[in-house]
């Protein structure tokens, strides 16, 4: 029996690298904590009885959750980029746009600033190139 000593990666360096990816919010602990109740709210829409209540009165339903007013407004506005900034995670938020009858393709497109047809056309043409959006610092 030996005590292993692999080359341990430093967690601070590991997390810092994620902030260097353009147009991307990695769902780290910091974001998970900030968005905790927003994500739990979204998760509640997996139950059809909750979806009915939510659709009947969005404001009343969302006010039951201990979210910040910013978070509530971002959800009510379906501003998914803002939701991500406030700690949302896309798989949780998916419960919101699925309840709206939107597909992942439609909902995700809204975050790119492109109109739906252009986004769809870009995907069919092979998607967004990684060229130039790999690293902010290294400009590659």
């Amino acid at each position, binding site marked *: 029996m030996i005590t292993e000593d692999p080359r341990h990666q430093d967690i601070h360096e*590991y*997390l810092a*690298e*994620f902030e260097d*990816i*353009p*147009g*991307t*919010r*990695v*769902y*780290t*602990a910091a974001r*998970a904590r900030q968005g*905790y109740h927003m*994500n*739990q709210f*979204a*998760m509640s*829409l*997996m*139950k*059809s009885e909750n*979806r009915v209540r939510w659709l009947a009165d969005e404001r009343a339903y969302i006010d039951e959750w201990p979210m910040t007013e910013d978070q509530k407004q971002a959800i009510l506005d379906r501003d*998914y*980029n803002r939701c*991500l900034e406030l700690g949302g*995670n*896309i*798989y*949780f938020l*998916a*419960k*919101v*746009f*699925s*309840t709206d*009858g939107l*597909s*992942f*393709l439609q909902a*995700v*497109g809204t*975050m*790119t*600033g492109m109109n739906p047809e252009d*986004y769809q056309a*870009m*995907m*069919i043409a*092979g*998607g*967004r*190139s*990684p060229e130039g*959006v*790999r*690293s902010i610092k290294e400009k590659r």
Partner: protein
Amino acid sequence: MARITAGVATSHVPAIGAAMDLKKTAEPYWQPLFAGYDWSRQWIAQEKPDVVILVYNDHASAFDMKIIPTFAIGCGERYKPADEGWGPRPVPDVIGEPDLAWHIAQSLILDEFDMTIINEMDVDHGLTVPLSLMYGQPEAWPCKVIPLAVNVVTYPPPSGNRCWRLGEAIARAVESFPQDLNVQIWGTGGMSHQLQGPRAGLINAEWDNRFLDLMSQNDGEALRAIPHIEYLRETGSEGIEMVMWLIMRGALGQAVKPLHRHYHVPASNTAVGHLVLEPAG
């Protein structure tokens, strides 16, 4: 003796399930994607695996923020399709294989993997879409399934190296199960996709194809050494799902024989990759 006879890799895009459920598979958008699975459906109809160890990730369906297991193995009798916000998929319940699942779970813990054992949960598109792709739309799934859910949502997910080693340990566990069973292991998720932010829609076909090459070769070291940041930079924030393929690949051993390969862009926001591999060790 149970044995792992093959490994399957496939993306598990929810829109693929929707296309099948809504009978759109012959539409021009979808046809070339599904064509790449024709060979696999014929192959699996002949192979008739008794059990599939299905490595996937839960997408905020069974697990919310209250509890986040890194590796969760399903030891239950059956699993229902999850309601992900648009009602459950109209697919059969997934039938478990508790004898083998508990055997693997116990063996892995002895082997110093810190497994979470799950007896009851619903399974989302991550698990049911691969079954649909491989088996079409039967009345009942033709195999038993052992769900193996990996956290790739909240950071950090397990390293590629840890995933590979888990695969190796699963192979050892299967080999020590006395019953004669034909077991496959599937790694799902990926390939390139980013579902969030202004960079959404990123696809890196070159990187994906290099990954498919490496998966089909006999050099695990290169695969295991890929750091998380590389998946994210090169293949989009959700490309990290590919670490789950390494569990499958690790379970096949050093040497593999590639039987089938398919790559298609797009399905919804995502590049679809698919491999069928046999252990050649």
